[in-house]
């Protein structure tokens, strides 16, 4: 749910990175943080366990520039991927403007990907959202690993509607900003539609 402030001339949008545990959601945010110049970003906050697994969420505020004289701010959130953190995932989806689903390309993670995608759809539905009507992008991460399955296969399993998708290697960066740019574009176009 975007927040438009005509007084301070700001648009705020919430983007959520979703996906199974260890697929690379936090790594996406870390890479974006690393590559964004200091004026454009706030602090990255990670509510993590001692072993660096996301406990509640990661949060990264970005202010990339202006559109029509309004400062556009994106608030990036990740969810904890483990199945038992479902209550937290639901909370983080509240008021979401756009979703990035990060899939783990490794063959042995296929089932977790599918389970997480179904979980995303269900959790959105509970709050009255329809995934098919939200700005939505899929990222196939970990393309560098030998057990990565083909993009065709991933699309067949995870992308029946044919939403935009990107291949990525999040720790090194390929695909990360392409993904961010596409979801940002869709969210802004949504605001345009509502205007």
């Amino acid at each position: 749910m975007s927040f438009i402030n005509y007084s301070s001339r700001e648009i705020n949008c919430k983007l959520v990175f979703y996906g199974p545990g260890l697929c690379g959601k936090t790594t996406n945010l870390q890479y974006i943080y690393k590559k964004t110049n200091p004026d454009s970003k706030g602090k990255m906050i990670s509510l993590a366990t001692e072993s660096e697994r996301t406990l509640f969420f990661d949060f990264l505020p970005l202010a990339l520039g202006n559109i029509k004289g309004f400062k556009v701010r994106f608030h990036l959130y990740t969810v904890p991927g483990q199945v038992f953190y479902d209550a937290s995932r639901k909370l983080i989806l509240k008021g979401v403007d756009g979703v990035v689903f990060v899939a783990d390309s490794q063959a042995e993670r296929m089932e977790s990907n599918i389970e997480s995608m179904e979980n995303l759809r269900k959790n959105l539905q509970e709050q009255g959202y329809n995934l098919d009507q939200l700005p939505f992008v899929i990222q196939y991460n970990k393309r560098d690993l030998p057990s990565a399955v083909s993009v065709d296969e991933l699309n067949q399993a995870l992308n029946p509607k044919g939403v935009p998708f990107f291949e990525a290697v999040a720790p090194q960066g390929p695909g990360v900003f392409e993904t961010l740019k596409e979801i940002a574009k869709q969210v802004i176009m949504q605001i345009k539609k509502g205007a």
Partner: protein
Amino acid sequence: MPDPGLIMYEEEFKQIDAELRRLHQQANAKVTFLVDKNGQLITAVGETENLDTTSLASLTAGNIAATGGMAKLLGEKDFSILFHEGERDNIHISLVGRVILVVIFDQRSSLGLVRLRVKKSVEILSQILQKILQQVDRAKAPSGSGGSGKEQPKSPFSEISEDDIDKLFG
């Protein structure tokens, strides 16, 4: 989609800001601020120079969301007030419908005083927010059905181009 985006115009923003200023002064607070339930800061008043208000806003919303989840498990609707006590600073958080009012204070004030002043502010802020939500509804309604309300400025966003978006990413 569940709820329309929050749109804030100059007039209501000024009223909110004025109310936060009043609360800040009357409660002897260090900082008062208002956050959207989704974690977006609406406005902050007081000693904010060395404070990361963006992060505070997001964590406040996370905090409210988490305790709200706990409330539901207990069969409560919500916990409308949260209080965190520190060695130096304390945080008082209260729900005002779709937004969250936060007061940070130290030994120059007291929980009793903050509570008292917050109560009054919550009433006033509720009224202003009510008005904002009505305007959002009206803006979403097909033209002509809005009735009495004043005209809002034409949205500048109807003319966004792909080029505008490309420029964001330099």
